């Protein structure tokens, strides 16, 4: 099992390297190599998942005498094995889908090398046995995300989006590294399995500082899982090819923040976290993100953007659950969400592909007839995301989150219920406009159902979107699962009402219309413009950061270079010019003089003593 786990990590790297070094010219071969590697890693993940026993294996990556060293290690337990199944499962299906979706792309080899690099990095995060290793792979998924968002880098918008994603994540990672360093000081270790013991042994730490360390670590999760106010990169990341959005920016990488917090909380023990200063903030950030994103989603017109905001909103749910000290609920929702959100994104990919890269839902319509498989599977994904009672997986995981919120924090419960309503509302808005009614453009009129390479992943994901929430399935493959007795309580009533009301509102407003009846409304404008946050950030960067940079540069030139040190060197330069007149005036002369001078000074000081 040990070597299988290392192979799981190594295989995607190998295929990325092989494609990059050798197969750049053989575009189709590289696509098949990457897909085969993804298939094999899926198989390995299944074997590992079904095998009994947890284990940790590691080697010293950077060893220094007198220091514990930085280790690269794999920790296999239910959490990481289940997460691996999600990563390789969605990963393999996305590879399959990409074979068709990217068939005519000029840089297919580069695309598949990027996917393979991503699979490697994500596996590293999931299996990491310590914080430094997690940070290493954390940065590497950032790189693969940068490369894949910027796949069509000659488009300005794609190049900007890639840069924005990387830089926003860097801000989060600034906090992440501080948190890791502080935690190392407090607990004396990076290794997850030794954290609890390390803390117990270190008696003198202050709960305020440990609280700050936890919040700093959470800052990393805010970057990767796009929590407000660092959420702005994720909607822009939709510039990448749609299968990438499904894999990286919906199902797996953006969930890494939640996974990391779950790993951290379960290693350190939630009862330790509970006593710390300020950790309640985490749940609130999750709650606020879920609400803001859901509001923004109600007024988007781009099919991928709507799904992106919905991802933000669902990530907010997960973070909220973790913040309320129920990492199990957060991870369970991560798990169901991965399947149905990948389904929705790949479904949107199929739509975009069929409509010749049209992404505006107002130019679609009537796809129900022309794309029946996509229509049905997308419908199942929509129901799962809305949490349609009993038959969808989303219902069971959302139920746990609402239940947790009800028990621990009533205001957050209200937010979560409101978000559930908004989710149903914006998803059915999308569904009605894109799939029902009449076709609103020539592109969508001529849409044809996609081929089997694309619809097979949709069907598999649709089945998972339905069944993955049942305890008989989740008990085996979910990274984290706690059987909760289902009972009719406030959580159930709230989620039921949310679905019914959300559907009714969406039906009333959007079932039979060719334009958005809310578009002119002032409040809707605010949602449409994402609360003007991007504009505000652009101003902060322009006047804050760049203004400061210009000022400091000016000051540096003027004072440091010009007056203080420059004055000194001008004096010396003046002496030099004096010599110029005496000597030949070329630089060779100066250099010779300098050489002689140095020798003279050395001679006098060393030998004349």
């Amino acid at each position, binding site marked *: 099992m040990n070597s299988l786990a290392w192979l799981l990590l190594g295989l995607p790297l190998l295929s990325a390297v092989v494609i990059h070094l050798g197969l750049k010219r053989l575009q189709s071969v590289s696509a098949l190599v990457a897909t085969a590697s993804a298939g094999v890693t899926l198989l390995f993940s299944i074997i590992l998942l079904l095998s009994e026993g947890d284990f940790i294996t590691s080697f010293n990556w950077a060893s*220094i005498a007198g220091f514990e060293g930085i280790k690269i290690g794999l920790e296999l337990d239910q959490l990481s094995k289940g997460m691996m199944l999600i990563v390789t499962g969605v990963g393999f299906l996305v590879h399959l889908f990409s074979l068709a979706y990217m068939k005519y792309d000029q840089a297919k080899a580069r695309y598949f090398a990027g996917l393979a690099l991503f699979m490697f990095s994500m596996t590293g995060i999931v299996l990491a046995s310590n914080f430094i290793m997690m940070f290493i792979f954390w940065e*590497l998924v950032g790189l693969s995300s940068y490369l894949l968002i910027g796949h069509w880098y000659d488009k300005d918008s794609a190049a900007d989006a890639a840069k924005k994603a990387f830089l926003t994540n860097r801000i989060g990672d600034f906090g992440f590294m501080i948190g890791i360093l502080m935690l190392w000081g407090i607990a004396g270790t990076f290794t997850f399995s030794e954290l609890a013991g390390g803390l117990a042994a270190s008696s003198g730490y202050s709960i305020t500082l440990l609280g700050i360390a936890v919040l700093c670590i959470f800052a990393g999760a805010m970057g990767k899982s796009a929590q407000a106010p660092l959420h702005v990169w994720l909607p822009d990341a939709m510039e990448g090819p749609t299968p990438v959005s499904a894999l990286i920016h919906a199902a797996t990488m953006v969930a890494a923040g939640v996974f990391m917090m779950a790993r951290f909380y379960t290693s350190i023990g939630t009862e330790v976290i509970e006593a710390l200063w300020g950790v309640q903030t985490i749940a609130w950030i999750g709650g606020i993100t879920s609400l803001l994103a859901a509001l923004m989603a109600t007024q988007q017109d781009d099919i991928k953007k709507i799904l992106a905001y919905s991802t933000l909103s669902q990530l907010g749910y997960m973070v909220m659950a973790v913040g309320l000290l129920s990492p199990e609920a957060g991870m369970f929702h991560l798990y169901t969400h991965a399947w149905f959100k990948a389904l929705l994104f790949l479904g949107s990919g199929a739509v975009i592909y069929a409509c010749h890269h049209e992404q505006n839902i107002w130019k679609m319509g009537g796809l129900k007839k022309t794309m029946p498989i996509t229509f049905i599977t997308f419908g199942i994904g929509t129901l799962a995301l809305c949490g349609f009672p009993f038959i969808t997986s989303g219902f069971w995981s959302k139920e746990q989150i609402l239940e947790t919120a009800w028990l621990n924090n009533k205001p957050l419960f209200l937010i979560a219920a409101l978000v559930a309503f908004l989710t149903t509302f914006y998803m059915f808005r999308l569904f009605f406009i894109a799939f029902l009614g009449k076709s609103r453009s020539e592109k969508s009129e001529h849409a044809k159902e996609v081929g089997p390479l694309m619809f097979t992943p949709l069907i598999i994901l649709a089945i998972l979107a339905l069944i993955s929430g049942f305890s008989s399935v989740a008990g085996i493959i979910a990274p984290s699962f706690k059987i909760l007795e289902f009972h009719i309580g406030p959580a159930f009533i709230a989620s039921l009402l949310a679905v019914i009301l959300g559907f009714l509102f969406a039906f009333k407003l959007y079932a039979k219309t060719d334009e958005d009846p809310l578009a002119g409304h002032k409040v809707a404008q605010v949602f449409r413009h994402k609360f003007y946050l991007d504009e505000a950030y652009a101003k902060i960067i322009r006047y804050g950061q760049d203004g400061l940079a210009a000022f400091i540069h000016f000051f540096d030139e003027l004072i440091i270079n010009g007056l203080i040190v420059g004055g000194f060197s001008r004096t010396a330069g003046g002496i*030099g010019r004096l010599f110029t007149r005496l000597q030949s005036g070329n630089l060779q002369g100066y250099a010779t003089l300098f050489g002689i001078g140095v020798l003279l000074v050395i001679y006098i000081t060393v030998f004349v003593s």
Partner: protein
Amino acid sequence: MSILLILIPILAAIAILSGGKARSIATGAAALNLIIGLGSVFSFDHSVWNFSWQVLSQPSIHLALGFYDGMSMIMVALSALVLFAAVMSGKCPEGHEKLWYSSILFIGAGGLGAFLSTDLFFFYAFHELALIPTFLMIGMLGSGERKEAAWKITIYLALGSIILLAGLIWLVAASGSETWLFEDLLASTIADSGAQKGIALLLIIGFGVLISLFPFHSWAAPAYASAPAPVAMLHAGVLKKFGLYGLIRLYPMVAEGMQAWLSLLIVLLLCNILWVGFVTLNQKRLDMMLGNSSVMHMGYIFLAFAALIEAGSFEANPLAKPAAVLLMFAHGISIALLFMLTDTIRRKTGTVELAELGGLAKAAPRLAFLFGLGAMASIGLPGLANFSGEVLVFLSGFHAYDGGGLGCVQVATILALWGVVISAVYMLRAYRQTFHGPAVKHTDSSHVQDFGPFCQIPAALLAIALLVVGLFPNSLLNLLKASTAPAPCEQAAE
């Protein structure tokens, strides 16, 4: 044996000056040096490489060469690598082959000599030897405002060298050591704490000027921007590390004296990182941006040094020295790679103004890949050498932290971490501006050709070095192990 590493480039330079085929001789010599250099560094028995010849008896000065410890080995590997890449890169103006190639070889020989010297006098003298051709090349074959830049770097470095020399002489005198050999010097102690403080300050300022420590940094960027590519590569990549090497080498002698300047040093290094970081952010030209970034990144190595000073000895903070040395190596390789590729961009498109560039990746994908690798290394992406150094630097900053209140080195580490964000901003902006987006007039594929396979060799070599050390930092850390392990007698004392 180690004298070979110095003799080969010097003899080759002499052969070139006396009329040999410049490019072939230089390339051959640098290649031979690279093989011998790496071979000697990774050989099992390092003692065979020692060489010693007493030049003077009063004072006792030796031309003593060899690997004093792992730090020298790593610096020698760095110098040999960058020298080889430098010889092969850049474009020599017609008719100047003699000056061009012999200067490069002399600079390389000076750098190698400094890191191989186990005698303080020659350590200093070899560095001075390397500076003269550096000034000449910038002043005579540089571009842009080369005269002004050459003047500035000459005056700064000359003054720095003289201050440093005063410090070194004081150091030797105060130590009472009979020779200038490192082993004798480091075995002696300086009892007078006033002298320790004074010497420490002279070393910080003298070496500091050579490393472009704030506020003595303004020579660096214009000099690198004007310098011919091989000179920028060798100075920023190799010679700048001389000062850091010297500080770490001599540190045990003035460990107490350094403590008096800890807070000053922390302020200055944070200025290097944050102040110069913002200056870098405002650069409009690729070469100036890189020049400033290299000044900025010196701050991180100083941070490891500050952690060392705080701890009081190598043993008390076992991370500080490996962190600093790893980052010195990584920075040297990555900045050399970036300067080399910037020069390639200048020659292919005719400009390094960021506003005039764009979309170069379409016409030159290999160039874009290698530059991207260098840029990612420089902003500390894991898997590339700089990260291995940086993460150890940050860990060394927190080595003394026990979970209570944060000390000044920890606060400095946190502030320095923001520099990692700043670096990413300017690097990715520049990369986006140069390589991404639609192609423009200067970068159209009808004008611009990608790297040929031959031109790629030096860049690929540096890229491989970044990858090897990034993926297997133990490849260098193992060399350092012997030099950081506590001496057996001290262990017994505990």
